[in-house]
């Protein structure tokens, strides 16, 4: 449906650039280019050591084969079971504690002081990586799964409460208004107007966090917080690379299974 009145100029349409001024665009490109070049220049690469690394890596990885499941089987099973219950306990606890914090951290539900209080709890939990928190709790409570559970619970809290609070803020206000208009009390209002609207996401997030917590439980074990990570660390310390390989394979298998399962569950909830 080209109109004959269209000039050659208007027919050659291009999307408008992100940065309007051509001069600013060129200047920015130049700065970025210079910085990248300078950064590479600063990087001191000792090519001899890189060359040495090749054969060493080969030796290291050949130590992984064949993976040995048998030699430390009981230790591996103990570590796995510990990781699993750490994950489940921490996720359940974390979600339970998160729910009131999420409600308090949703601007359309909570008054301003409560909102700030709950949001700062979330921020505190999200500031540090699980490994740093684990190091802290291991110092407080000593080695073992207790420190791990506390770490994962604390980490779950920031993640779950924040995302749930955001979902509460995104509810349809008309439904909430309608329940309020019936003369319902505040808790009844939460139960009838808010809960049904956020439930699918709440379940989906919990399953997703379960999956993350298992992965994290393997990592925080390395800094002393129990679980399969501790078993893995011990294997490395003893230069039992074949056992370490076996543990890594099991972790990969479980993580993949958990990710698949949580994907299926979350997909069903949509």
């Amino acid at each position, binding site marked *: 449906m080209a109109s004959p009145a269209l000039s050659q100029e208007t027919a050659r349409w291009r999307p408008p650039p992100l940065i309007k001024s051509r001069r600013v665009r060129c200047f920015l490109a130049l700065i970025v280019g210079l910085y990248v070049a300078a950064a590479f220049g600063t990087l001191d690469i000792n090519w001899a050591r890189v060359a040495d690394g090749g054969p060493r890596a080969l030796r290291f990885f050949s130590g992984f084969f064949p993976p040995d499941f048998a030699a430390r089987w009981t230790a591996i099973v103990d570590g796995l079971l510990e990781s699993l219950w750490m994950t489940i306990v921490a996720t359940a606890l974390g979600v339970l504690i998160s729910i009131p914090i999420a409600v308090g951290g949703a601007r359309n539900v909570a008054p301003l002081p409560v909102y700030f209080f709950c949001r700062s709890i979330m921020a505190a939990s999200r500031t540090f990586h699980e490994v740093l928190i684990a190091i802290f709790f291991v110092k407080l409570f000593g080695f073992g799964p207790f420190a791990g559970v506390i770490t994962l619970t604390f980490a779950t809290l920031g993640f779950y409460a924040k995302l749930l609070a955001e979902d509460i803020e995104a509810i349809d206000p*008309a*439904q909430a*208004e309608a*329940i309020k*208009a*019936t*003369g319902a009390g505040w808790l009844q209002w939460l139960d009838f107007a808010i809960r*049904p609207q956020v439930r*699918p996401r709440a379940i989906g997030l919990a399953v997703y966090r379960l999956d993350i917590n298992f992965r994290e439980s393997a990592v925080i074990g390395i800094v002393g917080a129990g679980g399969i990570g501790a078993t893995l660390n011990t294997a490395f310390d003893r230069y039992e690379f074949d056992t370490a390989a076996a543990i890594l394979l099991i972790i990969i298998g479980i993580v993949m299974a958990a990710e698949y399962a949580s994907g299926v569950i979350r997909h069903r909830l949509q």
Partner: protein
Amino acid sequence: MPSLFLENLTKRYPTGDLALDSVWLEVPEGQVVALIGPSGAGKSTLIRCVNRLVEPTSGRVLLADEEITALRPRRLRRIRRRMGMIFQEYALVERLTVMENVLSGRLGYVGFWSSWFRRFPRDDIATAFSLLERVGLTGMEDKRADALSGGQRQRVGIARALIQDPDLLLVDEPTASLDPKTSRQIMRLITELCSERALTAVVNIHDVPLARMFAQRVVGLQAGKIVYDGLPDGLTPDVLTQIYGEEDWLAADREYAPTGNNLVKSELQDQGRLAGEG
């Protein structure tokens, strides 16, 4: 004795918009009033000031002899039970069943734990079933609200308002998202139920022919002020121009039946006149 009395009601939003400007309105018991006016005239604000979903800036609202505008939160929740509200776009809780939506109208009467476990009193459940039958939704109680059609959803909305056993119905654009035929059916249902139960009702509606057809009294709102208050028959082109602004009202009028509450006639006209509306 008026059922509802608005005294010098004013609402100014924090943005500075004056939604209601010293409105005085008396609605006697059992009367169905249609509130018409262009978008932004303050219709929604007015009915929300009655149950204080919106806090009026000044003025008083009285239901029977109780001053709603003076109530503290607990008493306010109690008086909200006596005011059923029906919404534009239905405002059902989409993921709850039809029955839960209807029973949510009883939340003001039952305790938290009963409602948490969905253990409502037998009488409430019996009433819910008979209301569902009355609005034509027999057998739908376990469907999820989002599985229903627009007309069915609004019927659930009506049942939810009525199970409160209200004295007053606040109805906000009940037909805004319905097709013309369903709109008439819903309006008919609402007005029938009002006369069956001697309910007072304030119905916001921007469809003038529907207002004419179903209301006993029409109040025209323009920029937060009442500019017309009278019988549906008094809505002459001049009055409509005063409410809505300049338009060829007679041309629009010819699309509809000029008669007032003649239901039989309008029933017959349902078939032929769908194309002209909206």
